[in-house]
């Protein structure tokens, strides 16, 4: 019997290690020979730990597994109470268009042979033939835009670094995935780490960079371990080092562990942190493409952008660009989280609506109560009410609705949420995480908490709401980076779409 038991952090946090041990123990007791492969997660987190059993028809799933469910796997598996059928036919999975995540959950993350058997390193081989300018053109043609949230065309960034003069250039992967409701980087680092190594190597080839860093947040210990192991394996296989795949090109990688500062997800703060400094935001210009890490030309990309590079080089720019809508080409790994029935990772072409994702795919809330709000794009993203669920998943469509898709996170709230409290939290979080370099963010966020506290207490609510608007304008236009600049999104959207939560106390006072 061949079982798959995920080693993804979500699976482990819900007991996968114990399940794997129990399967081995149960098999030993029965004198059976079993193989247990620790795969990444399929991204259907409500089913984790999701055990898969290889059958002639395909991989059959059982989840969410508890220890008591393990013996049943060795009986009549088809009648197992946790049986969910063929994993790839579960609607949540079957409806996806997995390009970036094609291998995630399928393969053994640390088995290089498995990676190569599933299309790995075809992209790099193609890239070596194309050469630097050719790779940049291919990435430009794919329409890939930065998946960290800013949406800047990746190929244009690479071209800038390629043509920048410099004796030393760097590729930096931003895997400081701090947004609540996001876990795409984490899943891929734990489920398909060689894909990042390949993507960064291609970036190195495209730009002339010989050294790369993967900046991973310290809150992701499993990702750190898996990436380190994968890098060591890649080095041994001549896929990193002085002569990558006998191409004559040098490229090597290192993991760098963050230290619990959300702002280091901002690219220039991240670079300062890598240099061993406080993670403070740099003023731009100069842009990192010209003056980046240690003052050298640097490609700094979000992890998901880099994870997407191999498939673009493997299948061609056109294949990727054929997915999507408008200026948002390809697919987006949407991360559905919070109070949600079917939460997880859903990779889909741009253009699907917010309502389809929340209601049809995710099945509404976990508590069974009505959905009241969805925060899209992390702690700096806007809150959307159900009346805006017709918004299409697309960079520009979200901008038109005063929101952002950010890194692709969606956090669902039911009708028990107090939106004034969430607005206050946005300011509080900004105050907690501000790097302190610019005044609107450093002071504005603390003042924001104070003013919202007054509104909640019913002190001159109208006047104070006007003050919050004014403060948000200052933060939006006066902050150096997105932390101070985008904190107004959750605050103002909460006020705009849920005004009743900001006047409750006033109504209560008036009634007394």
């Amino acid at each position, binding site marked *: 019997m061949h079982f798959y038991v995920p080693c993804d952090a979500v699976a482990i946090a819900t007991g996968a290690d114990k399940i794997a041990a129990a399967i081995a123990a149960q098999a030993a007791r029965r004198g059976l020979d079993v193989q247990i492969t620790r795969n990444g997660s399929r991204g259907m987190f409500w089913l984790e730990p999701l055990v898969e059993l290889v059958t002639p028809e395909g991989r059959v799933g059982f989840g969410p597994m508890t220890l008591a469910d393990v013996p049943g796997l060795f009986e009549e598996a088809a009648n197992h109470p946790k049986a969910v059928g063929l994993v790839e036919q579960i609607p949540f999975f079957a409806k996806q268009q997995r390009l970036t995540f094609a291998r995630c959950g399928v393969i053994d993350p640390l088995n290089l042979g498995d990676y190569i058997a599933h299309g790995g390193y075809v992209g790099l081989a193609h890239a070596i033939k194309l050469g630097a300018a050719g790779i940049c053109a291919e990435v430009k043609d794919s329409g890939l835009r930065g998946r960290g949230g800013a949406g800047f065309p990746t190929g244009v960034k690479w071209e800038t670094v390629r043509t920048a003069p410099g004796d030393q250039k760097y590729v930096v992967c931003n895997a400081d995935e701090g947004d609540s409701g996001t876990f795409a980087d984490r899943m891929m680092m734990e489920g398909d780490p060689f894909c990042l190594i390949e993507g960064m190597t291609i970036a190195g080839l495209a730009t002339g960079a010989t050294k790369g860093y993967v900046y991973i947040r310290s809150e*992701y210990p499993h990702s750190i371990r898996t990436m380190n192991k994968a890098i060591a394996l890649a080095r041994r296989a001549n896929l990193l080092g002085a002569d990558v795949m006998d191409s004559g090109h040098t490229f090597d990688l290192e993991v760098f562990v963050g230290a619990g500062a959300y702002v280091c997800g901002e690219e220039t703060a991240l670079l300062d942190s890598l240099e061993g400094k406080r993670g403070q935001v740099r003023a731009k210009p100069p842009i990192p493409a010209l003056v980046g890490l240690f003052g050298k030309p640097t490609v700094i990309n979000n992890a998901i952008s880099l994870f997407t590079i191999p498939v673009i080089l493997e299948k061609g720019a056109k294949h990727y660009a054929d997915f999507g809508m408008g200026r948002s080409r390809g697919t987006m790994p949407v991360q559905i989280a919070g109070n949600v029935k079917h939460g997880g990772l859903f990779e889909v072409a741009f253009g699907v609506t917010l309502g389809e994702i929340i209601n049809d795919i995710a099945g509404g809330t976990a508590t069974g109560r009505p959905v009241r709000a969805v925060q899209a794009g992390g702690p700096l993203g806007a809150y959307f009410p159900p009346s805006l669920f017709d918004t299409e998943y697309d960079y520009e469509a979200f901008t038109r609705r005063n929101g952002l898709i950010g890194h692709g996170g969606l*956090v669902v709230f039911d009708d028990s949420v107090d939106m004034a409290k969430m607005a206050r939290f946005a300011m509080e979080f900004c105050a907690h995480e501000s790097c302190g370099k610019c005044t609107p963010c450093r002071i504005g966020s603390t003042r924001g908490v104070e003013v919202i506290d007054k509104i909640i207490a019913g002190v001159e609510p109208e006047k104070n709401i006007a003050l919050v608007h004014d403060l948000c304008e200052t933060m939006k236009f006066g902050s150096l980076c997105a932390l101070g600049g985008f904190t107004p999104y959750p605050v103002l959207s909460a006020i705009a779409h849920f005004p009743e939560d900001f006047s409750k106390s006033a109504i209560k006072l008036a009634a007394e």
Partner: protein
Amino acid sequence: MDSNFKTELVEAIILAHQNLEGPLLPILHSIQEEFGLISEDAMRLVASKLNITRAEVYGVVSFYHDYRQKPAGRHVLKLCRAEACQSMGSEENAARLLARLGLDWGETTPDGRLTVEPIYCLGLCACAPSAMLDGEIHARLDAAGLEALALEAL
């Protein structure tokens, strides 16, 4: 002075990382892993070995939430306070636990056994609320689950 401080050990840590391009954070991570905190003595030594000012080292240590200048309890429970966990009642659960322990965020029980700290996102957001106890992650923690987890450490 930190009673556990061992000059040779800190020097060895610094030496092991000195060839890195940006050695300060990795050095501080290692020192904290070894000693449980980053003492003033350690900062002084790091500054002198890396040829940077003590102010620079202190600036970095005090900037990042991960670094400690005071020892934590024997067990450290980090509770996620970010939005996804909030949507599943993490704040209410945390408030109840803290009240039961008589602690505020960041405080340690008087017997030194447990420190409770906030953390902002463990990336387990579809199985909220989540927490980390001594580096081990836990998800789907309702009020009872959280209490059971805390009791493990007490």
